[in-house]
């Protein structure tokens, strides 16, 4: 019986063929929390009578949301997490190392694993065919405690992406288009599986934007195959041993099938206050709209490839008067690579600024909170009311190239006009 990638991963873990809708107990290969979900997870571990991890090598804590901290409360929570990690001998990724999802992708996630994270964008791990999914602090604590959790085997929605992207159009645009088409609840409880000739041709960095944003359609996970591109990525990261090929069966029955010819798309923009309010960049609702802040980075588009695209557009240009450009590398690795390539120099010379690796203003906690009535265009994944710390502000989502072009013009701009 042919199986989708999600069914294949779960079946291998439980040792029997599973079917969508079935409730199963699964072993958890890796589990993590960050500085917002970690404190409650630690409290719940205490409530469970925790006295040490069965599998400490599977457990991690990341300090990325407040990185570095700007309140006493956050600093004290960081202290408590550091102390806990040291006491129980589990890995701590400290301030400045970067966003948990980017680091999981670079260093830890492996094809076929089940990964539970205390953050909705844990789904990013699907870029290397890991069934990675976000849960709340209590579920995370129990996954840390028992090294197991329960799952409902998801139905699969298969997205076949064919063709070649036009100049100025990126996987981010493709994902915004898909979410616009199926809606922000369109994949609730389901697995989004991405296949097709376009996926085959994209690097893991390019692919990662799709599973990362699968949760914006409500999905439990977003999965890409593990293939030659995955092997190349693991080789670049110096962990080729973690590679193994893994893919869903092409003839597996799916709940839903959608085919996209990516070559037909223009750059896309999601309008406030929902990710599924997507229009093409030529739409008069967005084209020429004044932007006060441009924010490039986050777990959605904080990889070196994203900053190369942005820097290429910003090279020798100036950010418009009255517009702020903030760039934030997704990890220390990305930061170092950008230093070597001179990308930050280009962005700063253009009038932008670089923040330390982390989540920053995307979580609405610090470093780039919007003023009332302001518009921001960002590479982030969410534009909900209040997301960047102010319910009176307006967030538009787009690719790094569209964001960079908009920074120069001070209004939402088609990147193809400046490339």
């Amino acid at each position: 019986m042919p199986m989708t990638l999600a069914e294949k991963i779960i079946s291998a873990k439980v040792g029997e063929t599973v079917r969508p809708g079935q409730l199963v107990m699964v072993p958890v290969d890796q589990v993590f929390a960050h500085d917002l979900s970690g404190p409650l997870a630690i409290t719940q571990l205490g409530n469970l009578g925790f006295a040490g991890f069965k599998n400490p090598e599977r457990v991690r804590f990341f300090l990325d949301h407040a990185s570095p901290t700007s309140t006493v409360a956050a600093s004290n929570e960081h202290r408590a997490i550091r102390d806990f990690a040291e006491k129980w001998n589990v890995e701590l990724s400290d301030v400045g190392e970067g966003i948990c999802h980017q680091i999981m992708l670079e260093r830890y996630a492996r094809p076929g694993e089940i990964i539970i994270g205390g953050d909705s964008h844990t789904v990013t791990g699907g870029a290397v065919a890991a069934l990675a999914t976000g849960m709340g602090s209590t579920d995370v604590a129990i996954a840390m405690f028992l090294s197991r959790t329960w799952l409902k085997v998801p139905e699969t929605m298969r997205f076949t992406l064919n063709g070649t992207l036009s100049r100025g159009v990126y996987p981010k645009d493709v994902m915004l288009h898909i979410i616009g088409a199926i809606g922000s609840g369109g994949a609730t409880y389901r697995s989004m599986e991405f296949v097709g000739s376009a996926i085959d041709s994209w690097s893991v960095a390019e692919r990662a934007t799709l599973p990362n944003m699968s949760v914006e359609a409500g999905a439990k996970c977003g999965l890409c195959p593990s293939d030659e591109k995955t092997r190349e990525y693991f080789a670049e990261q110096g962990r080729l041993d973690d590679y193994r090929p893994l893919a869903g069966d092409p003839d597996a029955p799916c709940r839903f099938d959608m085919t996209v010819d990516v070559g037909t798309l223009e750059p896309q923009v999601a309008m406030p206050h929902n990710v599924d309010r997507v229009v093409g960049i030529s739409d008069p609702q967005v084209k020429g709209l004044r932007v006060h802040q441009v924010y490039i980075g986050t777990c959605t588009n904080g990889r070196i490839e994203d900053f190369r695209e942005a820097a290429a557009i910003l090279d020798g240009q100036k950010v418009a008067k009255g517009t702020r450009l903030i760039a934030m590398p997704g990890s220390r690795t990305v930061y170092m690579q950008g230093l070597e390539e001179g990308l930050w120099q280009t962005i700063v010379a253009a009038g932008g600024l670089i923040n330390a690796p982390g989540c920053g203003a995307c979580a609405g906690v610090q470093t780039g909170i919007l003023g009332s009535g302001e518009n921001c265009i960002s590479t982030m994944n969410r534009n909900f009311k209040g997301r960047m710390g102010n319910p009176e502000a307006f967030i538009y989502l787009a690719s790094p190239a569209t964001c960079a072009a908009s920074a120069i013009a001070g209004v939402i701009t088609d990147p193809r006009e400046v490339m």
Partner: protein
Amino acid sequence: MTESGRAWLFGDNISTDLIFPGRYVHLLSNMPELVSHTLEDARADYAAGVKPGEFVVAGDNFGMGSSREQAPVIIRLSGARAIFAKSFARIFFRNAINVGLAAIEVDTDGIADGDALSVDFAAGILIDTDRGIERRFEPLPPIMTEILADGGLVEHIRKHGDFNL
């Protein structure tokens, strides 16, 4: 058993940012203060007005977005007995059950703000007595009913030593 309470009406796509705005994250160690901002960006009158045993009623995709577990926690602490919505975001739904807040998928069309509701959770019946609307819903699966009855997932695991699937 039938329970009664007033409806607090919300729309579709109520995000975790509307339930628990990120700007209040510094209040995590001050739950009473945090609870006073529950759902503030969706309805500023909710947190001060809701009475124990009343119900949150919403449309599709309630709780979309973040995994922040404090979102259902503060709704429970605000006094709401349950949330009735046409559909829930996955992580929110799981969190709600884990923290002991009933999240019920049911057709909420026609229910108006402030309506008197009565509900039988075990039988799966929701009645809007002001409008004479009766809706049936699928009672929660046994595992979730048991987690709720135990008072949340941590208490469930403490009681049984493991998931009692």
